[in-house]
């Protein structure tokens, strides 16, 4: 447990001291969403209609931006060898690193989302759904992304490769994330969609540490 806390604390500290990484993710999120009114025109009805989809798609892309550095720096400075050799299981190490990654990229995205919802004139009924869906969806993005980040270690242009590997796997989160918001706006219950998002999160919690750890072991061989 001390070892897991040590990993969590170190990664949070690294993210805080290199604050630019988190800032880039949030700024990318905000700037990209603000491009849409310019692209599709300022009619509030159109924007309100596409708001949930725009916010979700942009959140997916923003979270991709930060995935590359999840294991890359440890891989480059030899720290990954020592993480693999730590007496706690590598699976738990991956979980601790994912938690730190979510806290420093997923949470800022959730915080920025209401502002963007306002900007795109998303009906107020959808706001709660958006926040809940993102709360359940963004950890899944981090966990699924970790598999991709572990697989591309050592590859050239790993960042691009991660996108190709991971984006198709993000589709379920996108579908149910958007459905939860649109459902809430249209007055339907959003509970079923949130349940599916929760299920996806639980599945990712079980599968991702195991798959990522296997990929990391392969990377240090």
């Amino acid at each position: 447990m001390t070892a897991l806390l040590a990993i969590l604390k170190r990664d949070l500290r690294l993210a805080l001291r290199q604050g630019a990484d988190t800032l880039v993710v949030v700024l990318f999120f905000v700037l990209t969403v603000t491009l849409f009114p310019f692209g599709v025109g300022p009619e509030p009805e159109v924007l309100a209609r596409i708001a949930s989809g725009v916010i979700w798609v942009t959140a997916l892309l923003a979270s991709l931006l930060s995935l590359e550095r999840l294991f890359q720096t440890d891989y480059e400075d030899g720290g990954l060898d020592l993480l693999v050799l730590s007496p706690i299981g590598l699976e738990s190490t991956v979980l601790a690193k994912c938690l730190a990654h979510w806290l420093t990229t997923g949470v800022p995205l959730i915080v920025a989302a209401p502002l963007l919802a306002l900007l795109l004139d998303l009906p107020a009924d959808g706001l709660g759904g958006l926040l809940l869906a993102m709360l359940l969806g963004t950890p899944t993005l981090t966990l699924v992304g970790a598999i991709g980040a572990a697989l591309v270690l050592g590859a050239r242009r790993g960042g691009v490769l991660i996108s190709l590997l991971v984006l198709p796997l993000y589709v379920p989160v996108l579908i149910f994330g958007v459905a939860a918001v649109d459902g809430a706006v249209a007055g339907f219950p959003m509970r079923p969609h949130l349940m599916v998002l929760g299920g996806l999160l639980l599945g990712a919690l079980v599968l991702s540490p195991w798959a990522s750890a296997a990929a990391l072991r392969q990377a240090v061989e």
Partner: protein
Amino acid sequence: MALLEAQDLVCVRGERTVFAGLSLALEPGEALVLSGPNGSGKSSLLRLLAGLLRPAAGRILWQESPIADDPQAHHGRLAYVGHQDPVKPVLSVRENLAFWTRLKGGADRAVSQALERFGLLALADVPGRMLSAGERRRLNLARLLSAPAPLWLLDEPTVGLDKGSVATLEAVLAAHRAEGGLLLIATHLPLALAGARELGLARYAGTEAAA
């Protein structure tokens, strides 16, 4: 009784057999110096014994039980120093060492002592990016002292070290063996290691691609 034993190890990297039929046994307090030309498999052997690589054939035993049966227990009893120094540029010297120490379940008190032993106490609050190559290496070696482990696997630990630090390292290695610790070391620099055996890896050089 041999604490660490390897039987008929075969190491294959890519399509190439690096070495084959390699056996070794180490008793408490023993040191084994790995020698051989570049590419003869010194680093690979150390990584095999650490459990980072898996042997293509053969077994590695600790107290007569295979390390593959319980990798985590094996990880807990070894300290590995590779070619790279895992030092985070934005963390201070003390934070860097404290992290690796906690990961191994070592005490925070040992961190200061380890830093002092390797002459890094004055630099404890300096960020990692300000360190020279030799200082980074000393910080990496300080892990050996802050989280004690019976089996030390050192891959060219003297790279970048000045004379004084090499002497410190020799004293640290001697103290480790005096306490019954095991030492496997690949080095080109002749180190003062009393009664150390030498293992020439060239003898086990593999033939062309494994069938």
